[in-house]
């Protein structure tokens, strides 16, 4: 079986439509209104009181579903891609196998929740950025990118969805998210523990892994989708991150990186809007029609 599987060749049937981060960032539309457009602070947090709450929750649930598929693929690849006890300890691979088992259950739970919420498989585009973070050739970078950054994002997302289910009175959503959240905390903890053990005595490798995690954390902030700001639909789940073994400084760093991503996205959107207005004014506007 081939090692180091490229993201372009992930097995999907015709129901799925994949988009890359580049596609997503090229979208000049934005939910972030400028201060001139909005008289009050923008609040995009995913809560039931949002008029579009049901559809927004369905979209996020589908994002969780495809994220779980990619997490399963990532953990499974780590079991296979590295030579046992040469490139990765057997016990690390055993943990990754256990994680793959968890992710497979999460996929099944997410399919049932999507059905419950009125979505079909493949109804929303699949962003493949999660698996891309799982393609590193160094197992330590995989742990940083997948277990600490990706699973860390999962903690934030599941906390938001669990609270949504709780507030809306949806017993299935609240219950299922709570169970999956418990698994994600374990996955992050496994990543943190293995990162420390594998890089013991190799501070350079550890630093490189943590730098990679920071890059992935910024990517996973999805241009401001996850941050402490109420402008972001998903908040930073500080308490559960603490339980998963993140230090206060690490959580603070993720918070800063997420806010940076939000600000950069707002600036990029402003630039795209200005360019569109200029093109419109000069009569040379785009080609869509």
């Amino acid at each position, binding site marked *: 079986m081939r090692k180091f599987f490229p993201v372009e060749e992930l097995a999907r049937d015709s129901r799925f*439509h994949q*988009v890359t981060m580049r*596609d*997503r960032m090229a*979208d*000049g*539309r*934005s*939910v972030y209104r400028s201060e001139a457009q909005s008289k009050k602070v923008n609040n995009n947090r995913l809560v*039931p*009181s949002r*008029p*579009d*709450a*049901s*559809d927004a929750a*369905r*979209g996020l649930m589908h994002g969780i579903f495809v994220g779980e598929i990619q997490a399963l693929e990532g953990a499974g690849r780590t079991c296979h891609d590295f030579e046992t006890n040469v490139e990765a300890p057997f016990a690390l691979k055993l943990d990754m196998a256990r994680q793959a088992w968890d992710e497979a259950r999460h996929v099944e739970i997410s399919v049932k929740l999507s*059905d*419950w*919420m*009125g*979505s*079909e498989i*493949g*109804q*929303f*585009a699949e962003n493949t950025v999660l698996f891309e973070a799982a393609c590193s050739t160094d197992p330590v970078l995989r742990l940083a990118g997948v277990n600490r950054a990706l699973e860390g994002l999962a903690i934030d997302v599941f906390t938001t969805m669990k609270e949504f289910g709780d507030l*809306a*009175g*949806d*017993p299935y959503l609240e219950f299922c998210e709570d169970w999956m959240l418990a698994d994600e905390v374990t996955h992050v903890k496994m990543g943190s523990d293995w990162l420390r053990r594998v890089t013991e005595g190799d501070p350079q490798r550890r630093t490189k892994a943590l730098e990679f995690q920071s890059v992935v954390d910024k990517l996973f902030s999805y241009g401001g989708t996850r941050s402490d700001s109420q402008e972001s639909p998903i908040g930073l789940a500080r308490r559960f991150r603490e339980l998963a073994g993140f230090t206060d400084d690490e959580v603070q760093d993720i918070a800063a990186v997420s806010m940076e991503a939000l600000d950069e996205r707002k600036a990029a959107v402003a630039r*795209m*809007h200005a360019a*569109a207005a200029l*093109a*419109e004014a000069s009569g040379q*506007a*785009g080609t*869509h*029609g």
Partner: protein
Amino acid sequence: MSTAVNVTVTPDTFHFVSFDAALIQRVAESLVAALGLGDREVVIEVDETTPLARVTVDIGDTITIRAESGAFEDTRKPRNQSETATATSLGRVLLRAKDRLSGGFGEAPADSALTLAQSAAWETYSVGRLDRLGIPVNQQRWRYNFRNRHGFHDASDAAFDRLWSSDGLTWGELDEISRAGATAP
């Protein structure tokens, strides 16, 4: 600006999304005819700068619909248009306009003053009728929305089923069903 018999769409060229103003116009014309609203001019203004999916309607001599681009979007292929989503979004507000114009909805609050529960009830009543007009809809999506606003229990589901299968309701009847649906057994 695209103009047909009585439906106008702006803008006629899109920069942020790959939408087709002529398709929006055709879908709207078909709905206007099916719903018997042909005596009014319909203006559709699309805000392509936001991916949100709000749709509002102002009713006067002209029916003015303001739609955010997400309302017409194919969620499988971001920035591309979905004919089904376009029909569902336009159909929901055109039916609301028809209800207000047909009588029996005189006491209904302005759209901006509807509670989330009232709004979900009216949406359910509208989408059920769109379903019977042959527009593809996922009933479970609307049931989930209704449950989010009325509760996750049997009374809520019974109210949803009644609204979904109804025709010719007045505002008083619709509001009463919504209230009953929000009362946990």
